[in-house]
């Protein structure tokens, strides 16, 4: 009982949801299974003491993206797809891609756990540390008319602070690059949508 039990419960929910997404015949049912899977992932985040990520996971994926998915599925008539055969012509390629992905992800997990085992630091079990992050920053002071900077390490407590320091300090450039990409995608979508609307008019 206790934490392992809850972990396996959420893990089961995620897996069942993920299988349901591909196994269900009705697209709306698939979408609901995907929602279930997202909620399970949020639960796993909470277990890992990452409440901020859990809340954002639900807010963005379950509350935003999935609603748009459902919206689109309902607008498009998908009754036809339900009658199509289970095994497609692309089944072989799909299986191959799946196994490759499994090999890559599984290999990474096994390799990383082996590295951790070798270094003897198998300390997954300090969840309180995950919610804090230590920040080293240079504090500049004037000593004898010269600027002297000394590194000062601070411990930041709290999930959102830890995420913010990671995003806006340590990984600022990747973050900005990603946001520029998103902006480009958004502009592209608007341009494409506008062209279709003009054709309709």
């Amino acid at each position, binding site marked *: 009982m206790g934490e392992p039990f809850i972990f396996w419960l959420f893990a089961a929910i995620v897996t069942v949801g993920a299988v349901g997404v591909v196994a269900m015949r009705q697209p*709306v049912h698939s979408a609901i299974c995907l929602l279930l899977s997202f909620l399970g992932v949020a639960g796993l985040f909470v277990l890992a003491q990452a409440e901020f990520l859990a809340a954002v996971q639900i807010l963005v994926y379950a509350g935003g993206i999935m*609603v748009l998915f459902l*919206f689109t599925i*309902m607008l498009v008539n998908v009754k036809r797809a339900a009658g199509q055969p289970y095994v497609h012509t692309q089944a072989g390629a799909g299986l191959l891609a799946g196994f490759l992905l499994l090999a890559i992800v599984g290999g990474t997990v096994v390799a990383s756990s082996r590295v951790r085992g070798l270094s003897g630091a198998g300390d997954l079990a300090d969840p309180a540390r995950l919610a804090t992050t230590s920040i080293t920053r240079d504090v500049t002071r004037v000593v004898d008319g010269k600027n002297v900077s000394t590194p000062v390490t601070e411990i930041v407590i709290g999930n959102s602070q830890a995420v913010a320091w990671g995003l806006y300090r340590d990984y600022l450039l990747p973050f900005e690059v990603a946001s520029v990409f998103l902006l480009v995608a958004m502009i592209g979508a608007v341009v494409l949508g506008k062209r279709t609307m003009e054709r309709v008019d």
Partner: protein
Amino acid sequence: MEISPSLLNNVLIPIVKALVIVNVMAVMSGVLTIIERRSLAFLQVRKGPNRVGWEGSLQWVADTVKLLFKEDVVPEKAEHLIHYLAPVLVVVPALTVFAVIPWGPEMTFRVPGIGKITTGAYATDLNVGLLFILAVTSIGIYGIILAGWASNSKYALLGGLRSAAQLISYEVPMGFAVVSVILMSRSLSLVEIIEAQRRMHLWFVFPGLLAFFLYFLSGVAETNRVPFDLPEAESELVAGFHTEYSGIKWSFFFLGEYANMVTVSAIATTLFFGGWLRPFPNVAALSFLDLIPGIVWFLAKIFVFMLVYIWFRGTFPRYRFDQLMDLGWKTLIPLALVNLVVIAIAALGGTRGLQILAWILCGGFALAVVVVTRTRSRKAARAARPVTPVEVRA
């Protein structure tokens, strides 16, 4: 029997709190229906339900009993499982949110057999409480969309689709309004936000006047209430997403709606009106107001917001759908962005900056109100002037 402190603090107290909160909310929604019906009747110069109990005060009990025993009609070609699931998906998130809403400060009371217990009047104080509320309420959308889809009815589907579009659009300005409060309080925990308002001697409604209006407008839209009740517009869609529901499943949608209205009011109170704090918490001359416990202040503030909801319903006609989308995307979101930038600049100046912003905003608002009412009354006076015989002949 000896009860260990960890059992008491981690299991018993949370269970008792959860039971109290869920039951109070269920009863409160019932009581709110009768308050709403009588207030609406008052606004519309009619009597309203006044037979069951004193002045109709027990009407909601009679209605609940009726709904419990009513036949549950499910359309033959509906998706049965999802048709059943949808009302549950509306109610559960709506009640879950109350886990983090702070009703009052920490209190100590004596329980016979256990001893003194000190605990906050909230189930839990999450460090990401505000995000938790936004996340959980966004799950409630699924109940409405799936109810519309699973009913296998055109009207219900249209209602569900409208609701989805509306909720997604209004979540954006609501999020921005909430972010501006986070900038002022520098915390996501609701208890901490109230404490920040006490430390700064400032209800956040004053610097965040615009944010408050944006939040409450979006909140009304998110709860599908008049004038934004397009998902259930009876003149176009029969009853919208819940057309094919009856009995207790139908009433679940209303339980969810009222619970959501209380949530929006409670968050507006917490974020902008100081939560359980009395008015002017820094003025010592008003300290006699502390005799009234914080929980009463909180409930009173929520009640005022509920009355505003009802007042809206009795006053405004329904929007058209394209008007609704225009208002959301072309007015509220740009306003919310401007507001965010202004508050971010003011928050750089700390408490002092926020106070200056508060004075500017409230002065401007008061001035605008005076100017508008004076021009209006002047116009009205001109219109009401008796017509002279000369004018009649001309």
